[in-house]
């Protein structure tokens, strides 16, 4: 089908200069982002950076004041495209007087999933989020964590081409968070692109192929995690090194506290460096790959005043 082909070749999300003003408040200054089909994309930013506004614009819940965007190759707010988009809202609340299966049946029906396929599909997503056996319970009796799992199940109904998850683990314990990572990987394996809006940087770091960091309504950094977090320095605690030349590995310096710092070294060459030191008679006590964490990057960007010049 033409529409399916379009979904494969077009980016899952592409926006240019997306701008949103509420009254006098600028919620989103100018958003340029691109999410490829089938990738897990992390969307990060401090509170009030405009993440949820961006998500609402992408879903057509709010109209942009300026700029433009496409979701699955169609303009923002396109009704038919929403069949292929799953969404877990930040404030997930489902009809308390419905059972979990009834909530899913409602969403399956709104999404236009064929009635014959609804039963097995609901079983699949309930199992996926770990709610087997709870399908016939009223959601009013669910804990927040279970409600969030149900929301994830609803978002994943019918294998949408794009899944937008707004803080999907906010109500979950560490076990639940680990489950969600597995669920997101499964969705990716089934061909969905995932936009993950999260504060939990460790989670994003583990899951995402690429990220965008938004601050004060603009993207201040975007790209593959390896690129953003690259430029790291490897630190080694070495004795008996002598005058071994290590310049081939990068810029080398002694930090004065007994650590050797090597900059500009690709991660996969660290073992070669260690081997060379050992071969030269050096004794290696510790190796710290010293990759900058996403958290360091995030804090640097968000705290730097010039980031939003």
């Amino acid at each position: 089908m033409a529409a399916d082909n379009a979904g494969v070749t077009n980016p899952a999300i592409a926006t240019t200069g997306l701008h949103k003003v509420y009254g006098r408040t600028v919620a989103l200054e100018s958003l340029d982002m691109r999410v490829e089909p089938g990738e897990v994309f992390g969307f990060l930013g401090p509170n009030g950076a405009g993440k949820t506004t961006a998500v609402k614009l992408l879903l057509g819940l709010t109209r942009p004041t300026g700029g433009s965007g496409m979701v699955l190759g169609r303009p923002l707010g396109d009704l038919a495209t929403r069949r292929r988009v799953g969404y877990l809202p930040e404030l997930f609340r489902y009809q308390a007087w419905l059972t979990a299966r009834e909530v899913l049946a409602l969403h399956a029906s709104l999404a236009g999933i064929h009635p014959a396929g609804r039963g097995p599909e609901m079983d699949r997503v309930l199992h996926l989020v770990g709610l087997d056996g709870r399908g016939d319970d009223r959601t009013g009796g669910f804990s927040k964590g279970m409600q969030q799992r149900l929301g994830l199940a609803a978002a994943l109904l019918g294998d949408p081409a794009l899944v937008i998850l707004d803080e999907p683990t906010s109500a979950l314990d560490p076990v639940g968070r680990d489950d969600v990572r597995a669920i997101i990987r499964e969705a990716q394996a089934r061909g969905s692109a995932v936009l993950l809006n999260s504060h939990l940087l460790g989670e994003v770091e583990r899951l995402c192929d690429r990220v965008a960091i938004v601050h004060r309504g603009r993207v201040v950094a975007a790209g593959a995690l390896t690129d953003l977090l690259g430029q790291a320095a490897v630190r080694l605690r070495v004795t008996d090194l002598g005058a071994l030349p290590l310049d081939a590995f990068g810029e080398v310096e002694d930090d004065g506290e007994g650590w050797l710092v090597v900059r500009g070294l690709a991660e996969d060459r660290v073992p070669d460096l260690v081997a060379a030191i050992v071969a030269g008679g050096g004794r290696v006590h510790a190796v710290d790959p010293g990759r900058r964490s996403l958290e360091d990057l995030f804090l640097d960007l968000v705290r730097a005043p010039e980031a939003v010049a």
Partner: protein
Amino acid sequence: MNVRLVLVIAGLTLREIVRRRVVWVLAGLAVVSVVLVGWGTERLVTIAREELVNELQIRIGVSQVLILIAFMFSFVLAMSAAFLAAPAIASDVETGTVHAMLARPLRRAELVVGRWLGLAIVVAVYTALAGLLAIAVVGIVSGHVPPEPLVAVAFLAAQAIAVLTIAITLGTRLPAIAAGAVTVVLFGLGWFAGVLGNVAVAFDATALQGATDAIRVILPTDGLWRGVIYGLEPPVVLLLAAGRDAGALEASPFYVGSPPPLAFVVWSVAWVALVLAVAITLFRRREL
């Protein structure tokens, strides 16, 4: 507009009313009211017969009591409609339930019309059952059956539907409680304007009459209430009224001289459609 989705939302609304036990509360209220009405009417008729009051007078008396009961029922119905319908959209927005639903291929118009349809069905069925049951019980204990019970019940339901349409519309922008309260105030103002209009007719106050006529067009609830009275009023009252100077009667909010004109009935239907269209427009423009 996708009819399937409107029906999905209407069905969801009906299920909500049943699941949240609103139906049982309404049914309980109706049963209690009908029992009280039956008992009261029976006492009244028995006492009157013991006093050897003439049957025609008893009949007229019972017909007036029935109109009074219908008036109180219409008020309860309007309040129920207002407080059922005000949260229909407003609460879903406040709790965020609506976000997950509108991210699906569901138009806002389909959500509004579906909500309206579900509630209109509940209100119409409830009015029909409770209204006809009360009329039947009064008929059994007193022998008085109004000339047009179906017309009366239809106008009663139409009035409640008009009220619920206002409440849904206000609820697209206001919080549920505010929308409910404003609706009740508007309903009260409509009724008050109707009474003033009657007084204006009785005293030939043309300016006042013009103003109240305008209010009846803007807010047809009182005009619809007059349809209820007409359906409940025995012809003998009209004959009696015609036989003398009916000026004082015209001022009564429980008397009408003629049925609501067809043009008014048509306008009332159009009015509901127009207000619903306003609700859709307001909700479409709302930032979620």
